């Protein structure tokens, strides 16, 4: 057993040290203001080498950008007595609110299933490891539906060939974050691959936060809900009365 481990370390060790990623982000925070309409993120980097680049297999890069996760319930409608109602439901413990993946080629060609399983790179793989509470046996349909609905809403994005490689050393990937972001830490993961195997991984975070009035309203709604509710009513009362008065003056 010990000999086997030693052999593994010796065989894998040098290969990891040979090529590694040096990465950067165009910004490491996104501020959500009242006029926020989305944000562009540029992920860039280079490959550092101790020796000249191997000729084959070719180099590939995958970049994923993942928003904060939360539990979701996926329901399926069935026809009962002529009307369509929710029948079966599946609870998923953590599903990302946003997931974008960019790669330098078609994902199934540049990434081996084993390494996808190990690093949970693709969204399908990422979702398959979430804790599932199901009363239905065909939960794989529910997982696929989660992915499909997320893609339709623009929250799950896949850009095959979204990573541009230059000189076998430099790479860049552009992401356009949508306006309907959930605040929290967005994790960026960058994978360097050769022949379907992951050689190096780097991770960074982007801090997505509400600021200004958005921040104050959110904090108050959660910390002083009763006061917030009363203020909302006061706002309604003042606006309702104000409009009535303005119209009365205007009519004279």
């Amino acid at each position, binding site marked *: 057993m010990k000999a086997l481990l030693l052999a593994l370390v010796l065989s894998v060790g040098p290969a990891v040290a040979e090529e590694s990623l040096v990465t950067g982000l165009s910004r490491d925070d996104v501020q959500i*203001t*009242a*006029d*926020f*309409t*989305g944000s562009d993120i540029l992920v860039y980097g280079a490959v550092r080498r101790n020796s000249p680049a191997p000729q084959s297999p070719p180099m590939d890069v995958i970049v994923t950008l993942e928003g904060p996760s*939360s*539990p*979701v*319930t*996926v*329901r*399926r*409608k*069935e*026809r009962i007595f*002529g*009307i*369509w*109602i*929710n029948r079966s*439901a599946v609870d998923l413990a953590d*599903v990302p*609110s946003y997931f974008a993946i960019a790669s330098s080629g078609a994902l199934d060609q540049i990434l081996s299933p084993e390494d996808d399983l190990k690093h949970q790179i693709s969204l399908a793989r990422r979702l398959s490891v979430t804790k599932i509470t199901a009363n239905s046996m065909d939960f794989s*349909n*529910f997982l696929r*539906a*989660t992915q*499909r*609905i*997320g893609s*339709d809403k623009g929250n799950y994005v896949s850009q095959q060939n979204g990573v541009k490689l230059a000189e076998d050393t430099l790479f860049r990937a552009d992401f356009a974050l949508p*306006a*309907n972001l*959930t*605040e929290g830490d967005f994790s960026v993961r960058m994978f360097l691959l050769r022949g379907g195997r992951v050689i190096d991984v780097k991770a960074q975070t982007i801090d997505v936060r509400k600021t200004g*009035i*958005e*921040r104050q*309203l*959110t904090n108050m*709604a*959660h910390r002083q*809900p*009763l006061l*917030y*509710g*009363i*203020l*909302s*009513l006061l*706002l*309604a*009362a003042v*606006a*309702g*009365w104000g*409009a*009535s008065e303005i*119209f009365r003056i205007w009519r004279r």
Partner: protein
Amino acid sequence: MQIYLPIAEVSVNLFLLLGLGGLVGFLSGMFGVGGGFLITPLLMFIGVPPGVAVATGANQVVASSISGVLAQLRRKGVDFVMGTVLLIGGLTGSFIGVQIFAYMTALGQVDVFVQLSYVFFLGFIGATMFWESARAIWRNQRQGAQQIRRTQGHSWMHSLPFKVKFRKSGLFISILPPLALGAAVGILSAIMGVGGGFILVPAMIYLLGMPTKVVVGTSLFQIIFVTGFTTIMHAVNSQTVDMMLAFVLIVGGVIGAQIGSRMSTRLKPEQLRILLALLVLAVSIKIALDLLLMPTELYSVTRLVLP
């Protein structure tokens, strides 16, 4: 121009929101309905999460109702005695309705329950009102005389105890029917997330026999408090009131409500009723179709908010 809503966590076009608020406010001022049965589905349609749509819709209805009541007040169109009796019943009913809502949520069928309530009540009331007002218009055209026939309550209503004089409404009836009506509307409004004006207005005309002149103002008066209560409940229980969204809707809504209440004085009561009937029927048919036709996407994803 886009605006980011802090609680709903979506970015929406500012002018679209103003227009929605204005449309609902206009209907509120014109018909004396809060407009909750319209604003809630509309907000969900433009991408606001259902919980936020219900709670913020209620907040917007408070503002447009206040604006509408003040306009009606100057025309002496509010019966405060009747409004207070309805309100006492309404708050009791709303409390019961919240319990029923929680029970249906636990069963996991609250969506269908709410949709079926919409179809049934909107459909029934819309059809009844449409039939009655169409007959009234037809009769008026034939006789050339404008005569509103109102049922002065059924005979059994006059034999009930605790009679009170409702001066503004010109009624001398027991407080039990209005209390029961208020409670029934309160239950429905808690379940359907609406103020209940579209049920209250026809019920006041046809069941209690109140004159159309005071119905709108009195209904709005009751709606202010029921939706105000709902807003506070939602803010405390689920933190789903979006003040930014409410503010934009209110600005549009209060203006719409003023124009709407002006318009209502220019139309004949039965014309007003037939328009409201058509609107109510349209919403109920839309929801019925959603239930009957096969949806393009059978699955739905509900994100649970982390505590």
